[in-house]
């Protein structure tokens, strides 16, 4: 079978280009509606920065789906645990919130790996509904456990000094800039782990063919546990990064749960790099949409985009089929 290496000319834009055109259109509408470059520029910066955190969170979710075929509805709750870990570290030691980053990563990794080993490994290969119900139940369990231990009053883990940083005329708090840069650095580290290390190769092998992975001697259950742990560690790190500018409550993760799903579907289920790029797009759409369709929840434009993608490109804008 001869495969042509030359691209066929096509007048239909690629789904990715179409999405970027949509973002551009939103930018123009936002500019016209607000009549102010500084407001629109501010939305652009805020969106991009929020998107970096969505990327990290969604990469974890997409990794779990790609390797384990588990739709993890507890992902937002793991982010909430990350928030409370940060709160605890700050309030027990009085330290800077960023000291909590390694703590949140380790705690959430261990928690995720243990959950997979002790609970979810028993459900591997069972129907999608049963896993969905288990992770949904887990999410309720986590929220209520947090409620039991910390109460329902909103908590905070602010920086002592959180100055505004000027970037191209727009302003963002230092904590948000750190969240953006930190999330992207961790996202990149995850990518390097998966693509460049032999352990990452084994994870990809399990995603591609779990029986084949067993045949070459990979301990598939161990890979499952580590992968779930890596996924929840992403949520934990995302939780830590947003803790300094987020109201910490037991249900604070729920909103991010939904956003992460939008990002994962947009990037293509199981497509890790797709999730990275889509996270930034969702952040931009959220903020620009908030200006363009003023007076509504910024999430409105995100859900309109989500519906469009589900209707037109359910496999995501990068065209990669789920593994």
């Amino acid at each position, binding site marked *: 079978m001869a495969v042509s290496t030359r691209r066929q000319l096509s007048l239909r834009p690629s789904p990715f280009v179409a999405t970027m055109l949509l973002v551009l259109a939103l930018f123009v509408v936002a500019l016209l509606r607000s009549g102010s470059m500084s407001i629109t520029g501010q939305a652009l910066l805020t969106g991009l920065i929020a998107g970096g955190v969505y990327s990290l969170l969604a990469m974890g979710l997409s990794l779990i789906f790609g390797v384990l075929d588990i739709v993890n509805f507890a992902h937002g709750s793991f982010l909430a645990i990350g928030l409370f870990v940060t709160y605890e570290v700050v309030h027990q030691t009085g330290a800077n919130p960023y000291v909590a980053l390694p703590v949140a990563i380790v705690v959430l990794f261990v928690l995720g790996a243990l959950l997979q080993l002790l609970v979810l490994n028993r459900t591997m290969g069972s129907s999608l509904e049963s896993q969905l119900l288990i992770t949904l139940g887990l999410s309720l369990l986590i929220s209520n456990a947090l409620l039991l231990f910390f109460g329902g009053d909103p908590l905070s883990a602010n920086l002592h000094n959180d100055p505004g940083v000027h970037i191209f005329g727009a302003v963002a708090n230092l904590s948000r800039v750190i969240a953006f840069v930190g999330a992207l650095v961790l996202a990149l580290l995850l990518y390097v782990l998966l693509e460049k290390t032999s352990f990452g*190769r084994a994870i990809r092998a399990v995603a591609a063919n779990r029986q084949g992975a067993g*045949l070459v*001697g990979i*301990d598939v259950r161990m890979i499952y546990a580590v992968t779930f742990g890596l996924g929840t560690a992403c949520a934990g790190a995302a939780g830590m990064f947003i803790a300094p500018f987020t109201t910490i409550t037991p249900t604070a993760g729920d909103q991010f749960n939904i956003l992460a799903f939008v990002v994962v579907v947009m990037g293509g289920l199981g497509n890790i790099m797709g999730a990275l790029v889509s996270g930034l797009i969702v952040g931009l759409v959220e903020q620009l949409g908030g200006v363009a369709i003023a007076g509504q929840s910024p999430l409105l434009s995100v859900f309109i985009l989500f519906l469009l993608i589900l209707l037109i490109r359910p496999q995501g804008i990068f065209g990669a089929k789920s593994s």
Partner: protein
Amino acid sequence: MLELDNIAAGYGKLQILHELSIHVRPGELVSVVGANGAGKTTTLRVISGLIGTMGGQVRYDGEVITGLRAHQLVKRGIVQVSEDRDLFGPMTVEENLVLGAWTRRKAAINEELERIFELFPILLERRRQAAQTMSGGQQQMLAIGRALMAKPKVLMLDEPSTGLSPKMTWDVLNAASAIRDSGVSVLLVEQNAAQALAISDRAYVLESGSVVLEGPGRELAGDERVKKAYLGL
């Protein structure tokens, strides 16, 4: 070195294997032939721990290995190439091969890669290509190459001729002989009885989950009962 002793096994209440006993000696190419549903693939699944046993033992170098999981067998040197090959489709030929050596020291990998490329030159040519884009015969070679990367003492091949042209089937079976000549024991399960018997040191004929005939490959190939039942002569 590999012995199956009075194995009973099946799926749910359906028993497929009845008091099945076979063995493989070091450096031997042994085939298991028989009609569809005779229990050939089930036999391999028992060895590789994919299904449990209802009775009997699998022993390897004197150690009972019944019920060990696949990755534990690979560490002991028992490696299987499954019927549907189970390659890592989106990954490159080279990545598939390197993963084959998962249980081994990293230092040995390059040397082993060169040996595999010598045995199957097509894999060297296609090393950067995704496994799923190759033809059936090339995929079978890759599956065998990947199994060899683990440096097995016993290599189990499950219906390697499935979906291959007659010419390709000979290539694959000749490769199996070459692997045996290099000192690896080979346990070959084949529906393609004539060709399998021709290259085998010994063979078992399975019927309804039990061994009905056993002997040197060429002898069985000449046996009237075998000819009639399996070779269509």
